[in-house]
């Protein structure tokens, strides 16, 4: 099929713009002499284009004089059907080139449900799904993203796994992958020796003969190496961030200009993988951020700017930054958004800024209903803090709010769910207190207040204190959900949403899986499993069947507490946070004991040592040593925990 014929078949697709490219600020990839790669987010265009990591790498490579990077996504079923029927390969968006013709394919794996999609894309590109079956002319397949922190389930499908922030090594990888003077095998070995790069084919595993479980792992070409340390940039001000991002022609999930204000998190909620793998906290300077915001908005024309991070309030200069931005943008009718906010540090200045944004987008995540459980997961949030911030929002005029809760957390009991319902009722009651009229200063009572409660199930992830914890069965989760629903039944101001619990179980299995799951993923894909992050396309039975055929059970992977001395499938992958620290945190969780954030309190010694950028940040911040200590005391008082 010729290129123009491929474009013409797109006219019959449901959303042709998923495949055509040509958006504003998309790269010109016509220089045939350039070193090339294609970055693939193995889900649909709308989801992939909302992913900040893909955009960083895409624009970084395209900013290099002698390189270009194209994009590809997983096709929707309509295009896949046509491609399979006509035996045609999937093509890139920029130049409509079949993926196989490029020397390097980088898959961004943000969640486990993308594994089968990746296999499907390789197959649609006539590339062998097993790394061992690929030949000299095949592209080198690399992966990156959060899933790199336990790459074992997909180890047999990939040539290289990049652990950490790929922007630090990607240009070197492109260089090596395009070097046709050495063999493909040598190229892969050379890339495997770069910082943060893991070459699974260069490893030797020892397993327990009886159980098949991992007992050890060594690196063949580098016998002295014991682990893969993640690669990351110590100074975010020097890290690349695109200021001329692609503007999709049709709506995507997060259709806005993004500005990453900092990376990493200081809080350490014990269930949250992002809170550990993106450590340490690194911030961008206000002055730089203001310039970047200007540039991004001028080059895109976006009407929304999102300050992206794991928790915007953690930026030491957030009030100043957002106040200046708000002043600048409000007159241009550009709204400022904070995609994620913690409740404990909401100040009235921030609420003023938020008041200028669209009033329907406040999301609040208490995660657990009882104080006991919030302490156990290290949420560091009291009921008083939650209700105070709800009151502030209500007085600011908000009448709607989204709440995030989790069920199935380690140590959870039925009583915790009853308390969750109680907290939700209190939140609604507080929200109904009313708005304060900005002109008269009077409280306007009798305003309605509604909450949407999103309930998700706990998924135990690698590199968290809960990586040794078992997960609850679907029956337990359903029973807990039933308690919550019956507790809140008839409450008109509360809408409850939850997603399939069985999908969480499979995610949990893959997140802490080992190499034995490779054949399972392959079977699921062959059996039609793809686009399974779309819940209506997910089939639990397909996974059950595949597990059974490999003589494996969910019990072994997720329904048991893992012994702390057991060899973990991912223990050779290091995110910088020490295993000892995670163990300590797991013990503290059992004692329902909190660990305070390491910015306004003392360093918690999670593993970055004296070089930790947070220590530097503390030195430069306005907080004096006295204030730091004082803060600690008042917070403890609030929690009623003064020693």
């Amino acid at each position, binding site marked *: 099929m010729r290129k123009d014929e491929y474009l013409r078949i797109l006219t019959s697709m449901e959303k042709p713009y998923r495949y055509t490219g*040509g*958006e504003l600020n998309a790269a010109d990839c016509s220089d045939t002499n350039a070193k090339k790669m294609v970055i693939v987010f193995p889900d649909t265009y709308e989801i992939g284009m909302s992913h900040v990591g893909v955009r960083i790498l895409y624009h970084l490579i395209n900013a290099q004089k002698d390189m270009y990077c194209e994009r590809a996504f997983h096709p929707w079923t309509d295009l896949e059907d046509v491609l399979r029927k006509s035996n045609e390969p999937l093509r890139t968006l920029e130049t409509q080139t079949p993926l196989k013709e490029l020397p390097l394919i980088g898959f961004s794996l943000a969640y486990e449900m993308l594994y089968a999609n990746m296999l499907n894309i390789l197959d649609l590109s006539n590339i062998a799904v097993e790394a061992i079956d690929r030949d000299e002319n095949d592209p080198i397949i690399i992966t990156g993203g959060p899933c790199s922190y336990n790459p074992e389930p997909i180890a047999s499908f990939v040539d290289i796994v990049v652990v950490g922030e790929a922007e630090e090594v990607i240009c070197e990888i492109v260089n090596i992958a395009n070097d046709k003077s050495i063999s493909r095998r040598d190229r892969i070995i050379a890339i495997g020796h770069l910082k943060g790069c893991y070459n699974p084919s260069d490893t030797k595993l020892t397993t327990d003969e009886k159980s098949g479980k991992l007992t050890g792992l060594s690196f063949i070409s580098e016998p002295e190496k014991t682990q893969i340390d993640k690669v990351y940039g110590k100074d975010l001000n020097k890290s690349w961030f695109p200021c001329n991002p692609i503007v999709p022609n*049709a*709506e995507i999930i997060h259709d806005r200009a993004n500005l990453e204000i900092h990376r990493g998190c200081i809080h350490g909620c014990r269930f949250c993988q992002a809170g550990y793998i993106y450590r340490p906290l690194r911030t961008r300077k206000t002055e730089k951020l203001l310039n970047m915001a200007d540039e991004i908005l001028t080059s895109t*024309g976006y009407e929304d700017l999102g300050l992206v991070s794991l928790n915007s309030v953690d930026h030491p200069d957030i009030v100043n930054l957002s106040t200046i931005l708000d002043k600048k943008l409000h007159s241009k009718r550009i709204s400022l958004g904070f995609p994620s906010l913690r409740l404990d540090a909401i100040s009235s200045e921030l609420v003023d800024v938020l008041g200028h944004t669209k009033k329907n987008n406040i999301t609040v995540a208490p995660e657990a209903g009882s104080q006991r459980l919030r302490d156990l997961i290290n949420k560091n949030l009291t009921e008083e803090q939650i209700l105070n911030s709800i009151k502030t929002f209500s007085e600011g005029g908000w009448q709607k709010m989204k709440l995030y809760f989790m069920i199935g957390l380690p140590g959870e009991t039925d009583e915790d769910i009853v308390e969750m319902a109680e907290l939700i009722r209190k939140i609604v009651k507080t929200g109904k207190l009313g708005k304060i009229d900005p002109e008269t200063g009077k409280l306007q009572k009798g305003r309605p207040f509604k909450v949407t409660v999103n309930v998700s199930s706990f998924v135990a992830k690698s590199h968290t204190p809960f990586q040794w914890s078992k997960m609850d069965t679907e029956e337990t989760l359903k029973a807990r959900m039933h308690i919550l629903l019956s507790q809140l039944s008839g409450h008109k101001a509360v809408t409850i949403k939850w997603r399939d619990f069985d999908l969480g179980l499979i995610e949990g299995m893959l997140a802490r899986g080992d190499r034995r799951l490779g054949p399972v993923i392959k079977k699921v894909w062959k059996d039609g499993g793809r686009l399974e992050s779309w819940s209506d396309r997910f089939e639990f039975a397909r996974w059950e069947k595949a597990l059974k055929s490999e003589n494996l059970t969910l019990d072994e992977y997720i329904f048991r507490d893992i012994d702390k001395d057991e060899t973990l499938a991912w223990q050779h992958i290091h995110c910088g946070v020490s295993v000892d620290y995670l163990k300590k945190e797991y013990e503290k969780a059992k004692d329902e004991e909190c660990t305070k954030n390491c910015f306004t309190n003392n360093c918690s010694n999670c593993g970055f040592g004296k070089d930790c950028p947070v220590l530097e940040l503390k030195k430069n911040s306005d907080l004096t040593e006295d204030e730091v200590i004082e803060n600690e005391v008042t917070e403890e008082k609030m929690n009623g925990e003064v020693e």
Partner: protein
Amino acid sequence: MNQHEKFRIRLSYLKTSSLIFISHRSLIDVLMRAIRRTQVPLKFTQGFSPRPKVMFSPPLPLGVTGKAELIDIETTKLIDEDNFILLLNKAVPEGLMFTKATNLMPQAPGLSKMIKKAVYTFTPYVKRLKDHIPVEESGSSFPTTSKTTELMNMNEILITKKAKKGKPPKEVNVRPFIFSLEVNDDESGAKNNVETDQNDIKTDQMVTATIASGDKTVSPLILATLLWPELGESPLENVKITREYFLSPIDMKL
């Protein structure tokens, strides 16, 4: 910036190549972002969530090319027409090009009053048509001529329109919405080039249709299936459809 003064400017633009796949709703975002990038002082509506004051020509069906689509925008300052076009075209997605800007007199009627009819052209991709019509040996004799006359001679052309959920489909007579249908045979021998990457798909026949614009109209996609019934439900793989321009109430080209 004076929000009380009001200036109106009419923009003409092309919607081609990959941009033909964008819905009207998405196109509005694309256009508004292009206008925002020029930093012209837009006039906004009053109220809780102010919106820029703009008016668009009727939506193009997905997959149809537009050669002279229109937008009216209101600004708080008089805009230099030529400079505005330059600024607009400095950064646009593939397939979007602004061709003309005209400042409007205060009393000039808006787009909804001005646009009454639209002229469309239908250009079959020859190679593909051959695959679908096995009997036809010579590439030039499509059953277009007979169909155009046939359709124009009918008093009623009944189309079944899908109705909303739970209601039976409705039959609509679309004949009153079709004002003219003509076959433009290529007598000069110079074949029409259908724009493609390779520029090698040529055709020697083209149908030009003038149809009503607005709520009461017939979709050009339906018209294409009436002209080439053998193409079935998705004619766009085989026929390039273009909205060439709009006509005013006195049949002036807009």
